[in-house]
């Protein structure tokens, strides 16, 4: 077995990784959907600018986000009194900021793809505002799940933000990416490679789950042949 970390310690790292990235993706989804609905249904001046900002946010550098969150959570910063710096909570916050624009942007794009006349028909069959949003959400499910997949993939593999606001404290804020970084830095390539494989395996497993959810009930009528 690789030296440096016990099996129990590795398991803890895996658990924390899943907890931080999973919770961040879930919360980002819940925070992104209302905004995407709002941007879909309401047309106001500045709407395009907001959408552009969200689209830009899809490629935010994790270190920059880490820096911003650190500035806020630092002991002398505006939210310093919450004492969140170097805790899993700080890592979740940073990853929400990374995941949110991806989910909001891709969901909005998926909404725009839905035939607006279908929504008119939903209203004409008696849908309230809330039911109309639910219908839209269901019609755009494919794109929304793509957003979740992309966001989860981005946050579970990033190292900059979790490193800066989590601090890679052993047993407290060490996740797979920061552990790989650490082990590589001290020349412990075997362990680093093992952790890397675990990270990839987790990514694959989660994506298999999300993809089968995404493709479930997908239209199965014959598609045009590829010739």
């Amino acid at each position, binding site marked *: 077995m690789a030296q440096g970390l016990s099996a129990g310690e590795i398991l803890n790292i895996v658990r924390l990784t899943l907890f931080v990235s999973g919770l961040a993706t879930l919360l980002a989804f819940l925070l992104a959907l209302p905004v995407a609905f709002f941007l879909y249904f309401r047309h106001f001046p500045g709407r395009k600018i907001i959408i552009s900002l969200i689209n830009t946010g899809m490629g935010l550098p994790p270190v920059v986000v880490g820096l911003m969150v650190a500035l806020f959570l630092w002991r002398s910063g505006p939210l310093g009194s919450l004492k969140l710096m170097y805790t899993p909570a700080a890592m979740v916050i940073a990853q929400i900021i990374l995941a949110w624009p991806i989910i909001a942007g891709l969901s909005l794009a998926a909404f725009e793809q839905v035939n607006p006349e*279908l929504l008119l028909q939903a209203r*004409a*069959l*008696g*849908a*309230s505002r809330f039911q109309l949003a639910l219908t839209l959400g269901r019609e755009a499910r494919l794109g929304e799940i793509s957003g979740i997949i992309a966001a989860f993939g981005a946050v579970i593999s990033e190292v900059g933000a979790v490193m800066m606001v989590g601090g890679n404290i052993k047993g407290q804020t060490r996740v797979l990416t920061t552990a790989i970084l650490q082990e590589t830095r001290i020349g412990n390539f075997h362990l680093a490679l093992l952790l890397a494989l675990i990270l990839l395996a987790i990514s694959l497993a989660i994506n298999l789950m999300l993809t089968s959810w995404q493709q479930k009930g997908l*239209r*199965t009528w014959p598609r045009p042949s590829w010739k």
Partner: protein
Amino acid sequence: MASPELEIKNLCHYYHGKKILDIPYFQVSQGECLVIIGPNGAGKSTLLRIASLLEKPAEGEIFFRGTKVTAQNELAFRRRLVYLLDRPLFFRGKVKDNLLYGLKIRGVSKKEQAERLEEISELFHLHSLLESEPQELSAGEKQRVNLARALIIKPDLLLLDEPFASLDLNLKDEIMAEFQAIRKKRAQTTVMVTHNREEAFFLAERLAVLIAGEIKQTGPPEEILSLPHSVEIASLLGHESLVEGSVVGQQNGLLQVAAGSNYIYAFGSAERGEKVKVVFRPEEVILAEEKPQTSVRNWFYGQVVEIKPMDRMVFVSLDCGFRLKACLTKTALEELKVAPGKSFWAGVKASSLSARLSTAKKAEKDSDEN
């Protein structure tokens, strides 16, 4: 007369600053089938969307059974009606899910959902389609599912935008007849817009002519056809003669229809005793001084009441117990010496006539209302 289900007062609506609807008063009675006919761009769909509470009119008020629609009660009223767009659009999921959409939205219990699904599948022959995806269906099946998902709700008011426009002729006949039978059975209050004259003649109990955003004439189709208020209306509705009668005999699909003292032979599917409408196209009516020996089944004797020249043709109206228009060339008119007061035999082949169930009389409310 039944009280109004829907009333619209002082309606004005604009599009890009141009007035597209100007209707001082418009009403739909409970249980009736009102067809709004008009050329493309007359504002038919806009009127329908305003009546469906999907679009707010620039000016005007809408009342349902005497209660004014406001921002507060709008959703409740919207749930008492169903509006179907001019082409069937379906939600993700199976046919079954699409049929149940309106009921789920209204919070109808699971038990009642199942009962109504069963009932509507029976009426529209949908049992074999319930588990399919709507995209797999043919055009006719799609339209049947579309109508079924509206009627399953049993709305107080059903509003249809060109429901049969996308169907080919045979299919149109079949689905129109199916819809007609159910509509009649349930005394379903219906407003339908169309630019198709035949659809309008057969389905309408009352016809409203909408031209350039204004309702120019309303009344039973027979009345508007025989006495159009203007040349505009006459040319929109054409010169067909519409005759109503009851089926007294039937053989090999050929119906014998009694209309006044005449018998009309026409093709159609109806039972003995049922009321039907028959449309005569003036181009297919021939005139003769003596009744000739021919294979033509329909001969009516009548007096010329009106002669109207139009382009190269002349329209001659005869009173044969009902009003019948024939279209002649000017030469034929001169050769036959057609003049008002003179009587002629008018002949029409049975194969060029079709009879369809009419809804004008006896709307039977029966068991499935309870």
